[in-house]
Each structure stands twice: as structure tokens, then as C-alpha cells.
């Protein structure tokens, strides 16, 4: 003969529910945490009111006891309480819907690859649009607002020069100090001049400027465009027959193209000056000797390289900034996320480009 589980034969436990079946009572009542061990009766003869926590407790216990094959009975409940329980009982089907559908490992990889492909295509389309409207778009006079170019040059160039020069000076000082300690050991302090000069002109000047500008102008470009997307301003431009890339991005593209070389050269000069200050003060090298060594080793092609790098870095920063801005679909959280991503991606792309330049030049 089959054994019957004793829990089905046990007498019902009767729980007297309070007058106000509310969250405070539910928090103190531990039965929700106990495993069902037998039939249960909830005596609602004194219960006059119930809040969300009370309702949730009854639904939860009802479901749990039904799953265990045990009865849960509501005794002496008023018709009002029963109606409330009936009115607010959620659709059980809804609860089964997972927030995220889990997919297998390999389909996940496939999905990621396809998403990455779409992103790359989108990014390259943005680059092509930016370069197209930045060149041929200039000949469409009506679509290019000249006033805004000066405004963007002021914001992106003039207002950036202080921070760029300050940081370059400090980097120049730090580099020169560290190099000077080592060079001095071997009596080679005089090589500080060409080292700082070539290092700043060929590499650190444009690279440092680009990193600072990516953080400043790249993020502001992303935030501005993203805010326009969220505020439907981009949609408004499209419906007025205006290309958003041409209208919003091209002025920034040209502002950066024109100001970045000046920023980079300024950063370079100030950085070299930082090194010069260290050489004069710490190493005791004469000013004329430092400048003479500098001019002997730095050639015009290095300056041209500085300018070319700065322009390419400028395009990369604006491209990445615009791409992340237009990617936003909605919400402040996404604006913040894409702005951060734009800075990180911008710096990464700039450093990769610099590495590629190292092989070219």
C-alpha cells in the first residue's frame, strides 16, 4: 500500500489575520519564509483593510500551497476583501515572461559579431557623410552657416588653449626632469634639448592635445547631438529637408580642422618650453646652447608631421563624437553612457592612429 505523506493528513493550521493586513504586519510575520507543512487556514474575521503587501502575501501563500498540493483556505473574509483580492490578482502568464531571453553561447557570439558588423557599417557611414558634406557640402552656400563656424572655433579652439598649454607645460617639465636625472649621470645633459624637442614635436604635442580635446570637445559634441536626438531636434531638421550631419557636424568638423593645428603647435611650443625651463634651472645648460641644439635637430618635416597628425586626430575625434551622439535612442542615462564611450573610444582611436603614423613617418 502506498504511503501517504503525513502533511496531507495533518490538521489545518489556523492563522488569525490582523485588522490591518499591511506591510508592517507582513514584515513581522514569518510564515512566508516557512515551507508548507500542512493545510492552512487564514482567518480574516477581524480584517478590515489590506494593502499591497497584504495582498501580495495572500497571493504568494495561495500559489505556494497550491504548488505543494496543500489547501490554503480564506475563512470569514468579507466580500469587500474577497473582491479586492480578485480585482488585483495579476495575470500569472505575465510572471513567466523572462526579462531577458537567454540564448546559447554560440548564438550569443554570432549575435555579437553581427551587432559589431552593424556598428562598424554605421560608423563608416557616418565618417563618409562627414567627409562628403565637409568637402562638397561647402559649395552649397545656404546649407552652411558661416556664423556658426566662428562660434565653434571659439569654443573648440580658443577656449581649449589654456588647458592644453597648461598640461603640455607640465608634461614637458615632468619629462625633462625624469630624463635629466638619467642623462646627467652620463654627462649627456645636452641631449635633453633634442629629446624634448623631437618628442614633443613628433609625438607628444599632437597626441596630448588630441587626448585633451577628445575629453573636452569630443564629449561635448556627443552630448550636444545626443540631446538634440532626445529632444527630436534631429527629426525636426530631417523633416525640414536639412541633413543633420551637414547642419550640426560639419561646422564642428571645420572648426576642429582649423584650430587643432594651432592647439597642437601651441602645446608643442609650451611643452618644449617646460623642458627648456628644466634644462636652464636644473641642468644649468645655457639658453643659447639649448636652443641651438633644438634647432639643429628639429627639421621642418617634423613640424609638418605635427600638423598632419593634429588634423587627422581632429577628424577622428569629431567622427567618434558624432557617431556616439547619433547612436542615442533616448533617455538621460543613454546620453551619459554614449558621452563616456565617445571619450574612451576617441582616445583609443587617436592612440591607434598615432601608432600607425609611427610606421609611416
Amino acid at each position: 500500500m502506498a504511503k501517504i505523506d503525513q502533511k496531507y493528513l495533518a490538521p489545518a493550521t489556523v492563522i488569525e489575520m490582523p485588522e490591518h493586513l499591511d506591510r508592517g504586519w507582513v514584515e513581522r510575520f514569518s510564515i512566508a519564509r516557512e515551507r508548507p507543512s500542512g493545510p492552512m487556514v487564514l482567518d480574516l474575521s477581524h480584517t478590515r483593510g489590506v494593502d499591497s503587501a497584504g495582498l501580495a502575501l495572500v497571493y504568494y501563500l495561495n500559489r505556494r500551497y497550491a504548488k505543494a498540493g496543500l489547501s490554503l483556505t480564506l475563512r470569514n473574509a468579507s466580500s469587500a476583501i474577497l473582491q479586492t483580492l480578485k480585482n488585483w490578482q495579476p495575470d500569472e502568464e505575465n510572471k513567466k515572461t523572462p526579462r531577458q531571453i537567454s540564448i546559447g553561447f554560440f548564438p550569443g557570439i554570432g549575435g555579437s559579431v553581427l551587432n559589431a558588423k552593424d556598428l562598424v557599417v554605421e560608423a563608416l557611414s557616418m565618417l563618409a557623410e562627414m567627409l562628403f558634406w565637409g568637402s562638397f557640402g561647402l559649395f552649397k552656400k545656404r546649407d552652411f552657416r558661416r556664423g556658426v563656424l566662428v562660434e565653434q572655433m571659439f569654443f573648440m579652439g580658443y577656449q581649449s588653449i589654456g588647458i592644453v598649454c597648461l598640461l603640455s607645460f607640465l608634461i614637458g617639465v615632468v619629462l625633462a626632469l625624469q630624463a635629466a636625472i638619467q642623462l646627467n649621470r652620463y654627462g649627456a645633459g645636452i641631449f635633453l634639448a633634442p629629446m624634448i624637442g623631437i618628442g614633443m614635436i613628433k609625438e607628444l604635442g599632437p597626441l596630448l592635445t588630441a587626448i585633451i580635446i577628445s575629453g573636452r570637445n569630443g564629449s561635448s559634441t556627443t552630448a550636444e547631438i545626443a540631446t538634440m536626438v532626445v529632444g527630436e531636434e534631429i527629426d525636426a531638421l530631417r523633416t525640414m529637408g536639412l541633413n543633420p550631419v551637414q547642419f550640426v557636424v560639419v561646422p564642428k568638423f571645420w572648426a576642429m580642422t582649423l584650430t587643432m593645428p594651432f592647439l597642437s603647435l601651441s602645446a608643442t611650443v609650451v611643452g618644449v618650453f617646460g623642458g627648456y625651463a628644466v634644462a636652464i634651472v636644473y641642468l644649468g645648460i645655457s639658453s643659447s646652447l639649448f636652443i641651438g641644439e633644438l634647432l639643429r635637430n628639429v627639421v621642418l618635416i617634423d613640424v609638418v608631421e605635427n600638423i598632419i597628425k593634429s588634423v587627422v586626430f581632429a577628424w577622428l575625434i569629431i567622427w567618434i563624437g558624432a557617431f556616439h551622439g547619433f547612436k542615442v535612442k533616448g533617455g538621460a542615462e543613454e546620453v551619459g553612457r554614449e558621452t563616456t564611450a565617445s571619450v574612451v573610444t576617441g582616445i583609443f582611436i587617436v592612440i591607434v592612429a598615432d601608432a600607425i603614423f609611427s610606421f609611416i613617418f
Partner: protein
Amino acid sequence: METVSNSVAVVEVENLRVSYGPHIVLDSVDLRVAAPEIRVILGTSGCGKTTLLKTMVGLLRPERGVVRLFGKEIREPDSPDTVEALKHVGILFQNGALLGSLTVGENIALPLQMHTSLSKKLIREIVELKLTQVDLPGVYSLLPQELSGGMRKRAALARALVLDPPLVFCDEPSAGLDPVTAAGLDDLLLRLREGLGITIVVVTHELASIRAIADNVVFLQKGAVLFDGSMAKAMVLESGPVHDFFNRRGPLGETAGRGTLEFAVENIA
């Protein structure tokens, strides 16, 4: 399903389906708007009203179906046909969508600068005229952020009207406005229809506005057209979702009360 039949179609939508990924938002939507009328597209939140409007103006690409404005098919947002058709269309977005970097006057002047060869002085005159038409004098040099919500809506409406379009789309024009300002905007739309013969398509769920301005209504539910007919006929329906909408009646919610778990009950008090 009741429909309105008119002679000159300004907007035609045939068998439209729009999806966001796997989620179908609009399915098998047909619509025909004739000139001049105020057609209101209404429905509960999430039924696809704004999606329909954005598809009609070419901002969203449908998965299936056709949209035509003035007989021209609207495909991609940047296609020449779409750009040409949209020159005859004004759009009032939900939050105005005025460009924050331009003054109110510059915002309104923008379509004139882009699509006409009028002189700057004449453009200025037209902008001042439009500001007068929307009862918004004296704000030419202000920035959009310096205006109240209602004023921004009016300024955006002035921009939508600056090319004297025969067709205007309005996305939730009364959203976020107090009843008095909303009523003022409704009056303005009525005056535009009566005075300038403009066809206006309004997406809204504000009952007071619908009752005030609608000639014909399209009721959407879960992405499908449930009713397309005159306001008078919509108001006399005695049952169904349209009736419930106008009489502010409905279930507690989509899923409340649909639970199937039974309660064992003894001695109901």
C-alpha cells in the same frame, strides 16, 4: 469598421506595418485624409499613434505598406521625393523641437532660408507675421529655453507654418500644457483650418482637445485601426473601446484581475 471617404486625398496610408525589431507596433493600417479637415489620431498610450505620425512624415521606414503625401510616395527620410513632399508639410513635435542654439526668430526663419531665395529682410517680415499668427509677439530674439512650454509650442507651430504648408502634423500639441493654454492652442488650430484652409493631422489623447477640434477621428488600439470616421459618429457609439475611451472607462489595467488561481473560501462575512 467605419471609414471616411473624401475626394482629394492629402495623406494616404495603405496596409502599413511598422516594427521595432521583433515588436510589431502598427499592422495593416489604412488611412486617408482629405483637405481641409482636422483629423485626430487617438488611442490609449502605447497604441502606436506617434509611430504612425513619424512614419507618415518619413522618419520611420515601414516594414510593409505605402505612405503618400500629396500623391508622392514617402520612402526614406532623405530621398528627393520625401524632401520635396515635406516642403509642403509642417510638423509640430511633442516638445516643440526648437533648435536650442538658435533664437526663436532664427528657428522660424530656417525653412525659409533653406528652401527659398527670399531676402533676409523679407524673411524677417514673414517670421514676424507668423509670430503674430500664433499670438507670440516680441520673442524674436529670445532663445527657446527662455520661453514657457506653451510659448515654445506656439513658436514651434510658427516654424511649422512658415512655408504656408497645406498640411500640418501635430504630435500631442497639448501635452504638458495647462487647460487654458491648451484651449488657446486648440483655438489656434481651428483658426488655421478655417482661415487658411490647412489640413491638420493631430495625434493626441487629450479628450478636451479632441472634442474641441476634431472633424474626423482615427482610433488606434494595439497598432490597428479600430474606428475611422466622423467625430459625431464616434461620440454616439454605445459600447466598445472607442466608447470607453470617450467616457473614460476601462479595465483596471491590462493584466489586473486576470489571474486564474482560485481561492478556497469558507464563511464569507
